[in-house]
């Protein structure tokens, strides 16, 4: 990839950004997209991909700039608001916000919901801006790295994700890992992608497999309803509702954490399919390892909250790279973006920088404008949205059940999905009363199929010489990383407990 082409995109970025923010049509569609994204992220069960896919048919009636603005708006909007519900009602709106729950909800219970939402607005904004900037600066290097990652390395990243989530999400890493492994096993149910064999397919519904959306709704949403409403007097959020409090001092104090989380987000975002689910956990883990106060993590640490949210939003930058320069979508939303680009006759791939000079800069500018608009809008609307989620739990949680049921139904339009959500709700409740965290299980269900396919594809590729698979340089680094995570997982927790 020629440096001249990259530098050309760098040069065009300021003018592209100016062009985007001064085009009324683009700004209006971007704003509409962020509003739709905000709603989608807040409602459990409605996913970013679902909303983007539903609007795809409408998008191609719009000009290219407006269509892309609408889709990018939805992505940036939903990414932010998924973390918002995680803070306010302990139910992440998107799978990527599962790590946000760890510190966001304890902060809300301490009466610091407005500060937590403010921190999320700031961190997610910086994550988005820095993530896209890194995309553009490191375009040739990251593309090279993306090409180096094969199936074996993708499998190892999924393993690392489960180990990290398992070690961090609960009080006992063993229980976290059990939840993660069980999640991976649930993902194995259904038709296997390599040989087409129906694993654990005892009924027709099971042959189709377990959809992660109903599982997410059950494990986080319904189990939370059971946990809270079984109390005669359910908890109520303390502190006064009102507009989010922007704590810029916190953002500046944790700027190194933001930079590290951005790099994690961009780096992991390039891995197709798993980036957004794994990166917040890796960033959270790194933040905890380098923090002066690791004992506060999981009890209401702004540093942990900022790390998870920054990485979540920076991932869209990383996911953009394989989509634009290789034509391989790095995540669900970017797969929809890729489809939209094809509809408009744009051919993403190595020749994109030559065929359409300035297009990468334009896309980055759209993400920046979307991030800016979303956060200003979120801050202005936060007074209303925070007030809404402050209402008594006896009212809001039954509403979450009905929305969850609708979301589970909408994920596949089968009764099996609704029953799956309910079954996972009961399982989630039983897990939580025995201190098994549900987050690693959701992650396992989400990335299990990718882990299985990539491992077996790697084994097929290297079936003549398995040793050469284990000796791949990137794989060796990841194996060392996985061993390090396993060894240090318990030790770090022990140190944190000792400090408290």
């Amino acid at each position: 990839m020629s440096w001249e082409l990259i530098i050309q995109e760098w040069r065009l970025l300021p003018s592209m950004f100016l062009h985007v923010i001064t085009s009324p049509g683009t700004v209006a569609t971007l704003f509409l997209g962020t509003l739709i994204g905000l709603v989608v992220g807040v409602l459990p069960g409605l996913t970013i991909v679902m909303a983007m896919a539903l609007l795809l048919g409408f998008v191609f009636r719009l000009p290219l700039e407006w269509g892309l603005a609408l889709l990018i708006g939805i992505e940036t909007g939903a990414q932010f608001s998924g973390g918002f519900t995680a803070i306010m009602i302990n139910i992440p709106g998107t799978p990527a916000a599962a790590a946000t729950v760890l510190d966001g909800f304890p902060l809300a219970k301490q009466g610091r919901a407005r500060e937590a939402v403010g921190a999320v607005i700031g961190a997610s904004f910086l994550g988005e801006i820095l993530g896209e900037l890194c995309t553009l600066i490191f375009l040739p290097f990251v593309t090279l790295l993306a090409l180096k990652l094969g199936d074996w390395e993708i499998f190892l990243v999924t393993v690392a994700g489960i180990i990290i989530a398992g070690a961090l999400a609960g009080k006992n890493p063993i229980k976290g890992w059990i939840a993660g492994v069980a999640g991976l096993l649930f993902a194995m149910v259904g038709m296997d992608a390599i040989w087409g064999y129906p694993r654990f397919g005892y009924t027709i519904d099971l042959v189709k497999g377990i959809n992660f959306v109903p599982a997410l709704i059950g494990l986080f949403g319904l189990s939370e309803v059971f946990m809270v409403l079984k109390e005669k007097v359910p908890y109520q959020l303390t502190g006064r509702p009102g507009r989010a409090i922007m704590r810029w001092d916190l953002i500046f104090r944790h700027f190194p954490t933001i930079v590290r989380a951005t790099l994690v987000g961009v780096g992991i975002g390039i891995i197709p399919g798993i980036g957004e689910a794994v990166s917040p956990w890796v960033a959270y883990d790194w933040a905890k390892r380098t923090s002066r106060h690791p004992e506060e993590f999981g009890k209401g640490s702004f540093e942990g909250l900022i790390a998870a949210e920054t990485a979540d939003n920076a991932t869209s930058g990383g996911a953009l790279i394989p989509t634009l320069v290789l034509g391989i979508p790095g995540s669900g939303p970017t797969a929809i973006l890729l489809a939209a680009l094809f509809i408009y006759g744009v051919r993403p791939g190595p020749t994109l920088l030559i065929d359409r000079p300035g297009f990468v800069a334009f896309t980055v500018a759209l993400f920046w404008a979307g991030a800016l608009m979303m956060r200003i809008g979120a801050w202005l609307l936060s007074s209303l949205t925070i007030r809404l989620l402050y209402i008594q739990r006896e009212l809001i949680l039954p509403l979450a059940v009905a929305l969850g049921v609708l979301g589970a139904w909408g994920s596949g339009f089968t009764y099996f999905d609704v029953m799956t959500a309910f079954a996972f709700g009961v399982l989630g409740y039983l897990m939580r009363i025995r201190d098994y965290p549900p987050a690693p299980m959701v992650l396992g269900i989400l990335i299990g199929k990718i882990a299985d396919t990539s491992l077996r594809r790697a084994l097929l590729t290297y079936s003549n010489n398995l040793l050469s698979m284990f000796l791949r340089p990137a794989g060796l680094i990841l194996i060392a990383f996985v061993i390090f995570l396993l060894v240090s997982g318990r030790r770090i927790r022990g140190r944190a407990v000792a400090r408290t």
Partner: protein
Amino acid sequence: MEEHGSEGQRNAGEFLAGIVLVGFSIFVIVESLRMPQRGPIPYVLSPGFLPLLLGFILFLLSTFVLSEGIRGGGHRKLGMWLGGISKHEEFWRWLIILLMTGGYTFVLGKIPFWMATVAYFLAIFIYLRIGGPARIAMYALGFSLFVSYVLPKLFEMPLP
């Protein structure tokens, strides 16, 4: 349900969870071994390879939990713990809410979605005593309208 009970009750819970997990992992291992073996390296490329691997890992991890439960004498206190669960008020509240939610999911497709949603909201709001009849009716109808009309219209979603 016991959540912050005594050490003995905790160990009884650990023991029961360990038994269930070990049983589940053995089921996974047996089922994985029954899956067809294909490809140049038969077992490694079989559809059951990763489930088998995960089954073994789950078995190992579950034995930690089980041994912790046994070390703490959980197997001796299991009967007492299970017998004591039904005496907790929280258990009954959980069960009633579970039955209401389960009933709501079960009747979908058998009666119109809006009707099931209104009935669910009315039942749960009455049980949770959120206020007088007017308040209950207002919230039940308002929320039902939002869930079974506004949202499906907005996202062009067919209803159960």
